[in-house]
């Protein structure tokens, strides 16, 4: 009796905590649309998975098809053209799929594992060689988590064919704003990489900015204006527990960036008079100031090896990207094309740097490719694009754009040819950040 009333109180407290900044709550879904397609992409047929019993909430083959399509490297056969539905390797008539000009075929079966759980088995076949490349049974999963299972299968297919780990089974964080002025509600949301399963991490009537995933995917650092001024917090996305990292009353507290080992946070703080880059050791809370100039120094980001920090500075008159040692030292300018360059993002292999490049009033996402001798290519059309963030395998990139009166997100294939628009029916979506590979 006593015990149960105590747990009731605990529950109640958890609920109250949840109202402020709390354990993830379900949230309105984003509209998801895929635009474009690539003729040269590899054709794959993903046959509907065989299943007995009550229909499931998720069409696994459909989730896999969308994943493969939106990364730009594959072109999945339309369901209407899938004329046969084999579910075992021995049932595949390869002549049919050759005639349909498919390079690969994916088949699968869903088996009831009891207690609302199912086991999903799948196979990937090379149509021309008539050879099985993959044949796996996924661990039993709840029917409410079948999108996650489908993303993991898409990852395995992607890796088998391209040699690069897939990044479909990952999450994104972003900020939504619904209403305006004093009635605005900002939400920090975490969702699957395709925009499904949105969960609220934090909510405020003042602006939320710059969410950044910890390298282990358990926490998000972000900026909140809830106190009236900007302040940087770190929040555990599972428990909702939160730490104030920098909330000085004077100046800007902003632009958090995790070191690759997760032990430090780079920040932009302006309590000395202008925004400078600092690094805080999260264990000791010790801050080290890295820049000294009268300019704006912000948007720090670590190189994947943790040795350098890139940042935006207008010390030369207009904002450009600079790089310095993660321990400090003299920064060197690294962006030279375009009138302005801001907010760098670095791919996992350091070969590509994405940034916002401005010419006149047009702000577009540009990628500087070191493996192509520093060649610059534009990934987005503008005019007000920002916040580039790479998927952990750099096969895709997500960024924020303004479409008329609405702020929306686009997830785009690395070649820029396939774009997925993520929008809210009655609000703005901003500040995307692509999370790391998932472990669970």
């Amino acid at each position, binding site marked *: 009796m006593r015990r149960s009333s105590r747990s009731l109180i605990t529950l109640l407290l958890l609920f109250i905590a949840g109202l402020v900044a709390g354990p993830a709550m379900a949230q*309105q*879904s984003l*509209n998801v649309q895929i635009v474009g397609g690539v003729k040269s992409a590899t054709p794959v047929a993903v046959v509907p998975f065989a299943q007995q019993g009550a229909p499931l*909430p998720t069409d696994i083959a459909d989730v896999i098809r969308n994943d493969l399509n939106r990364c730009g490297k594959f072109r999945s056969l339309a369901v209407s053209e899938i004329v046969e539905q084999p579910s075992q390797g021995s049932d595949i008539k390869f002549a049919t799929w050759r005639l349909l000009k498919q390079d690969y075929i994916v088949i699968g079966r869903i088996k009831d594992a009891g207690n609302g759980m199912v086991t999903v088995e799948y196979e990937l076949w090379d149509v021309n060689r008539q050879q099985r490349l993959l044949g796996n049974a996924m661990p039993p999963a709840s029917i409410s988590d079948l999108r996650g299972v489908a993303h993991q299968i898409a990852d395995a297919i992607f890796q088998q064919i391209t040699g690069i780990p897939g990044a479909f089974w990952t999450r994104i964080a972003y900020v939504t704003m619904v209403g*305006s002025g004093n009635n605005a509600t900002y939400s920090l949301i975490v969702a699957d990489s395709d925009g499904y399963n949105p969960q609220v991490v934090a909510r405020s009537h003042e602006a939320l900015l710059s969410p950044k995933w910890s390298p282990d995917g358990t926490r998000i650092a972000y900026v909140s204006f809830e106190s009236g001024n900007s302040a940087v917090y770190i929040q555990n996305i599972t428990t909702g527990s939160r730490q104030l990292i920098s909330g000085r009353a004077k100046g800007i507290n902003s632009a958090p960036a995790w070191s690759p080992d997760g032990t430090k946070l780079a920040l*932009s703080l302006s309590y000395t008079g*202008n925004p400078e880059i600092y690094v805080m050791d999260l264990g000791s809370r010790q801050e080290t100031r890295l820049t000294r100039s009268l300019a704006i120094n912000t948007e720090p980001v670590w190189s994947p090896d943790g040795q350098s920090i890139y940042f*935006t500075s207008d010390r030369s008159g207009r904002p450009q990207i600079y790089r310095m040692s993660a321990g400090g030292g003299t920064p060197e300018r690294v962006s030279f094309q375009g009138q302005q360059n801001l907010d760098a993002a670095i791919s996992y292999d350091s070969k590509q740097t994405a940034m916002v490049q401005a010419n006149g009033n047009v702000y577009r996402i540009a990628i500087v490719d070191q493996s192509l001798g520093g060649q610059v290519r534009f990934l987005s059309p503008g005019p007000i694009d920002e916040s580039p963030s790479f998927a952990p395998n750099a096969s895709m990139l997500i960024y924020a754009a303004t479409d008329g*009166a609405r702020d929306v997100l686009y997830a785009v294939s690395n070649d820029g040819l396939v774009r997925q628009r993520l929008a809210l029916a009655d609000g703005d979506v901003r500040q995307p950040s692509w999370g790391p590979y998932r472990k669970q």
Partner: protein
Amino acid sequence: MNKTVRIALVALLCVGAAACTKKQETKPQAPQQPETTTAPAQPGAGKYTAADLDTDACLKQRVVYFDFDKDEVKPEFQQIMQCHAKFLQDVPTSRMTLDGNADERGTREYNLGLGERRGNAVSSALQANGGSASQINVISHGKEKPVCREHNEDCWSKNRRVEIVYTAT
């Protein structure tokens, strides 16, 4: 799932017709101040009191606008600087926050820096006219608090601003 599909359909309908997005265009609900040609601050006249904030033609002007990419307080706002600085002097208990803002061009984090620069410029101008730094607090909102959300210079010019907000008198 159902909900998602329904919302997606609404979006599809909107894609074809540009008018659909236009309709949601935000109405500029700018607390636009009248042009800055009003009332001379009466230098040397009697001391300001808290009541003058609501009645004095100069003190009622609380928004300073800036040119693109600039943080200089333009000459036409000098008069406003003078009367607010005089108010800070005459009412030593008064405190103000300068809310610095930027237009939508440029990234959110960089614009926090630009908004702060403008707030600091107004703070310097007030101090140059006799206000005390201890009475002034600068907060930058970057481009997070636009008064107008259209994508043109007319709208941008309304957003490049510092708002003077009295927090104590």
